[in-house]
């Protein structure tokens, strides 16, 4: 009895492994599945799983399924590097999706690039990601590409002068501020004041009082969603009204803004690479499939991950073989249209087009498409 069980177990273990080696194409993902930032990784995994089910309906390279292994990085650089090493060494993956944070990518990128495994960030928006090396791609629009679209909308509404406000102790917020400043200068706006604060601050009254006295047409804020909410709440207390247009960076693009700041956030503009209510058919089909699979609404991170796995699957098909080098070259020829809109890579492996960017406006605590 015991021996028979042992043989059965051995067979059960051996067979799928053998089958996988012969047929499936191993692909890895490094995402934050535990800890404080796990909401991002879990959303990304949901998007990947949904895309995987659709892709494996017919498979790649003439019917071979993709075997996706998602490893948890725990949100740390060490965790991300270990996860990537495990995927390359143990699973022999031909490409990696992720990691979740720009910080993690700066640690993982040099490793995967050195091993010649194409790595595609779906949520990494910091400057310099694709400078890591020729195998590093990203499908997430860097903030520097999104902000100009938002500013164009603001200028169309008559904004001529702008004040900038940012958290000066956080790399993400500082990088967003640099993009805002460059975009405002490029768009010919006159920057009349620049103020900073600490990302854990709760009092912004001094900075806001100063800005209010200068009467700018718009105030752009680069910070994570919590301090942005605090700034807006206090701005309303200090008497900022409809005459001042508030503009958020990537950090403000979160439903939490409406939950924390409520009506104080009304009128804020923010650019987003994706929006749930985008009316095109591909997007609505994705939203419907996501709701059917998980019983909740997808977010930007799920949408970006979903598109990315399709982009990778198409590249594997074009490559004609499941080898990292050929997949890298095939990725450069990407021409895909999905929920994010039309997508191609630049020669530098960044997203080529901002066509898919939607400018959102906060109304009654929720985002809608700005008119």
């Amino acid at each position, binding site marked *: 009895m015991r021996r028979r069980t042992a043989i059965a177990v051995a067979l059960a273990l051996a067979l799928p492994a053998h089958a996988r080696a012969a047929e499936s194409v191993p692909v890895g993902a490094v995402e934050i599945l535990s800890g*404080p930032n796990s909401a991002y990784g879990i959303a990304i995994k949901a998007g990947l799983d949904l895309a995987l089910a659709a892709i494996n309906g017919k498979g790649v390279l003439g019917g071979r399924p993709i075997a996706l292994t998602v490893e948890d990085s725990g949100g740390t650089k060490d965790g991300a590097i270990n996860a990537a090493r495990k995927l390359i060494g143990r699973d022999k993956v031909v490409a990696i999706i992720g990691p979740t944070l720009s910080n993690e990518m700066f640690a993982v990128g040099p490793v995967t690039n050195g091993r010649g495994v194409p790595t595609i960030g779906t949520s990494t928006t910091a400057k310099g990601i694709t400078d890591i090396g020729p195998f590093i791609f990203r499908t997430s629009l860097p903030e520097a590409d999104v902000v100009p679209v938002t500013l164009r909308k603001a200028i169309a509404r008559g904004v001529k002068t702008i004040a900038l406000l940012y958290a000066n102790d956080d790399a993400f917020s500082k990088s967003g501020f640099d993009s805002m400043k460059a975009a405002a200068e490029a768009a010919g706006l006159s920057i009349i004041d620049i103020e900073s604060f600490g990302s854990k601050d709760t*009092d912004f009254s001094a900075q806001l*009082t100063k800005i209010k006295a200068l009467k700018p047409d718009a105030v752009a804020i680069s910070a994570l969603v919590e301090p942005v909410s*605090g700034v807006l709440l206090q701005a309303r207390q200090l008497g900022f009204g409809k005459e001042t247009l508030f503009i958020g960076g990537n950090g403000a693009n979160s439903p939490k803004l409406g939950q924390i700041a409520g009506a104080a956030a009304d009128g804020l503009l923010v650019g987003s690479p994706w929006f749930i209510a985008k009316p095109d058919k591909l997007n609505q089909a994705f939203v419907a499939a996501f709701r059917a699979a998980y019983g909740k609404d997808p977010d930007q991170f799920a949408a970006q991950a979903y598109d990315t796995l399709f982009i990778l699957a198409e590249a594997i098909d074009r490559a004609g073989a499941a080898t990292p080098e050929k997949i890298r070259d095939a990725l450069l020829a990407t021409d895909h249209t999905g929920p994010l809109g039309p997508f191609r890579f630049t020669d530098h492996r960044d997203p080529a087009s901002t066509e898919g960017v939607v400018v959102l406006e906060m109304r009654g605590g929720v985002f809608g498409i700005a008119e």
Partner: protein
Amino acid sequence: MLAQQLVNGVLLGATYALFALGFTLMFGVLRVINLVYGFYFTAGAFLALWLTEAGISLALALPLAAIGAGAIAVVVDGLLLTRLRRAKADELSSLMVTLGAVLALYAGMTAWLGPDIRRLPPGLVGAGALDLLGVRVTVAQVLILAASGVLVGGLLWLVRGTRLGLAIRAMAEKPDAAALMGIDTARLAALVSFVSGALAGAGGVLIGLNFNAIHPYMGEAMMLRGFVVVIVGGLGDIVGALLAGLLLGIVEVLTAGYLASGLKEAVGFAILVLVLWTRPAGLFGRAGVARA
């Protein structure tokens, strides 16, 4: 603009003073640098959040949250500090024990409730701001200012005007002698914990209301400022804490408004260093005098 900035500074300073009151009381009487204090601040804010979400009015939720935070303080301080007091451990021991405990408490709370920022139900206090000659003040800010004044007055009366206060001061002076005179120092220590925790809790509610951001680490963010305030004001000095709080608030706001917003914190902590250099007992303190 200067008028508005000065008002901003006084209001910010009032929040610092409000936060620091119980912290400085604890030190003055029990000779304990109690870093868990920041946790009682967080606890008060969360209790008020849950009470008001259950439909209880702020007028009732505020005292209830303060009492709740005070009760938590009695239990936690009792567990952490009784042994140290019996062993007559020095201030550094209490600093280390409470530092470890408060980090564990914050992390535990984050694991339980998540790191998200919550806000009190809208409409608890009038959302509008009063406009006095172009200077704007919100109802929550007026509440904080009034509460700081009332609590400082109440605390001074308790410590200086009552028999209980006499016992507290006796204990602050010499715990052993006070015990020999028939003062139950263990009970008195618990009472001081309660008052200190309740002050922290009330501060948590009011400051949570003003900035509308309640999260497990909110006490930690205030703690550094609280430290500056009690050291500049003189450890254990109640009036000193009030004055130092206001001073820090005004200096921070004026720095951000007229110098550079990036220097706001640098100036606050530079004051701390300067005070420690020139007047180690605090701006308003007298060396060698037991305060409470």
